[in-house]
């Protein structure tokens, strides 16, 4: 008799809130951590600033951040297969970004990617 009552009653707002919070918890967590990280961002330098030999990089920063690998791959193809030795090379990268431990490795470690350039190419 009693259990039938419960089934017939509509669930209260408090009961409904429990599964909704459980579902929203990871979403809220990521929003809070993102907001927290935004505040912290200004204080800490993740990458070492380049020892500027050139005042500007070969492409703008936003392009290099996402597409440096495309650029390097295209240049590699141009040099090795078509003999177009232009101004872009891994050696020129090293003139400003002097240390691979402090530059390349930082991001590549963070996303656990291992570029295999340095097995053959010299980069200090």
């Amino acid at each position: 008799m009693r259990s039938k009552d419960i089934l017939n009653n509509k669930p209260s707002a408090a009961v409904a809130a429990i599964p909704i919070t459980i579902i929203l918890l990871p979403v809220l967590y990521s929003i809070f951590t993102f907001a927290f990280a935004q505040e912290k961002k200004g204080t800490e330098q993740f990458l070492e600033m380049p020892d500027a030999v050139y005042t500007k990089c070969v492409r703008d920063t936003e392009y290099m951040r996402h597409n440096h690998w495309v650029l390097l791959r295209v240049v590699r193809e141009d040099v090795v297969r078509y003999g177009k030795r232009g101004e872009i090379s891994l050696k020129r990268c090293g003139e400003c970004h002097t240390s691979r431990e402090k530059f390349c490795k930082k991001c590549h470690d963070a996303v656990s990617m291992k570029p295999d350039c340095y097995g053959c190419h010299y980069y200090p």
Partner: protein
Amino acid sequence: MDRRDFFKIAGGTILAGTSGVYAIRRLTGSIPGSTVADSPLTGKKWGMVIDLSKCVEDCTACLDACRYENNVAFHQDERWDVHWIRKIRLESKIGTTSTEKSVILLCNHCEKPPCAQVCPVQATYKREDGIVVVDHHRCIGCRYCMIACPYNARYFNFKDKEDWSNTDRPKRSHGVAEACNLCAHRIDLGELPACVEACSNVGEGAIMVGDMNDSGSEVAKIIMAEAVKRLKEDLGTEPKVYYLGL
């Protein structure tokens, strides 16, 4: 519409759509990459002449220069040694008299390279200017090219080279096949290969490199005028390394 028609229309639409998108991206230039057509190498054909009468028997200037320039893995151990250029002794016997000769051997940069024909990933290929190059980024180390090469000019990297003699140039990590690339990096900049430079500085200038298509070059003149020989010409690989006095 029956089942057969549905597949025809659906397949056709997908094919047209994907190829159309690819064509648009290719034409508008959002897929980067070069083609053979805009290569600066077209029209040239690099060849080499080795004058064995000038080659001094115990001189190793070219070998040392090559090992230094290209970071060739030379461990002083014949199991792992890599030679881009090497010196051997040939003995020819006619009747009772025998003559010995020391001969320089290297990649012959064939016009029809068997190594490039067998390479399953097109890592070995002939550049537009006739130099046969290994793209070590692509090489998977299958060693077909070593079997195909009739001159035994190819070597495999069984062991990494630890020291780095010339930091301007890359070395090879273990697991790739390699051979002489006629110092393509120097030739592109208008310089002479390391062995040629060393031979003219230290030795007698026995090795010469030049453009065979340019009839004014020293190499083209020698090939036209003198009795030059190539190695294993009967195989039809058309090597571009010519020997004087072989």
